[in-house]
């Protein structure tokens, strides 16, 4: 999965509101729930990699 945090949260919000809307078959609900559970875990992971990285602009320029 290649979603960044912003996209993940957006998709997660969609899933929750769809589920909360309630007009779904049990099958579809469960599928969405699984997708949502994975997404929320990913989001949490992204947030918990808590270390500020600092680079100098010269290094970036050299990288390119």
């Amino acid at each position: 999965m290649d979603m960044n945090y912003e996209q993940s949260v957006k998709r997660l919000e969609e899933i929750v509101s769809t589920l909360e809307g309630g007009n779904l078959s049990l099958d579809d609900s469960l599928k969405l729930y699984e997708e949502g559970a994975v997404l929320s875990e990913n989001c949490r992971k992204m947030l918990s990699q808590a270390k500020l990285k600092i680079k100098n602009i010269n290094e970036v320029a050299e990288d390119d």
Partner: protein
Amino acid sequence: MISDTILSVSQLNNYVRSLLDGDEHLKNVFVSGEISNFTEHLRSGHLYLTLKDNTASIKAVMFAGNASRLKFRPENGMSVIVRGRASVYERDGAYQLYIDDMQPEGVGALAIAFEQLKEKLSKEGIFDAEHKKNIPSFPKRIGVVSSPTGAAVQDVLNVLARRFPVTEVIFAGVPVQGEGAGDIIARAVADFNYLNCVDVIIIARGGGSAEDLWEFNSENLAREIYKSNIPIISGVGHETDFTICDFAADLRAPTPSAAAELAVPDIFELIGYINNIKERLLSSITSKISLEEMRLDKISDTGFLKKPSVYIDECEKRLTELNRLLNIYIQNEVERKINQSCMLASKLDTLSPVKVLSRGFSILKSNGEILASVKQAQPGLNIEIQMSDGKLNATVTEIMK
């Protein structure tokens, strides 16, 4: 003027005034001094003040037309340089300064330059609100333009590390004061755009005097900020300091720390939000499942699944009912048939020969055969006469035709 002539006060004042007005030097003088007794005449808009130094003072007036062009508000105690003419107010015999223009001493020249540049860039639309870019909600990489040795960059990094440590900082060290610093800062902004390596740029510098912050009023910097495709947050100086950089930036923060706070969300809030979403996810699927369970319960509670015997009873009842209806039908049918046959029997009865006999007719038989013609008989034939209530045996004695 003749010494023994007696003058009126008006004449004297008028004469002195003409002397002063005739002096080329007094027509356009620059005078520095401190403002005191400052009053602004509310209705007319004229400013009245006394300009003084350590040992002397002079009354001064600045008429509304000139006063309205001032970029700052004069105050008591303020050191200023004024330009104007020295003359006499004839009514009071007062010698005073008529001020055309006034500048605060010291930063005055810079202040004017600042206002001029601000006005120029503003007219060009460099500060237009419509041009401002949105600051991204979740920047992955943040460009920080600041002095490598200043406190500002530490403030910025501290806030970023505390609030949103999942981001990466690309640091561009620049001088933040002194001739040419503005151009170097502008260059850093251009570099970030050229490398296109960050989602947002913070320009940061701690507080200082107006002179210290001067390089952030660079025209080049303003234009580079305007050109930037990357949103820029300006955190230069302290709350009350405004620079051209602040006006040109997409977002102005009162301090470097505030700039960092505006650049990133608070990770604890985000984690709280994610947890909250996770709970909603869980509760929505749980309620979905219990809803389905309830539906299932409802289905199995009613009808066949719950009590098959009830269903069978129902069938039996129906069957009995059908049976009953069938019996009724059959009975009716049989009765109808019986009635029908009775009717036929009585009809038949009326045609019966026995009935005829009772009316006096008889049936003749011989040897069991009915005699319907005299031709069947001859004299001496024994015949049987059948009557309604019995039989007679007789012998034919004569045949007549």
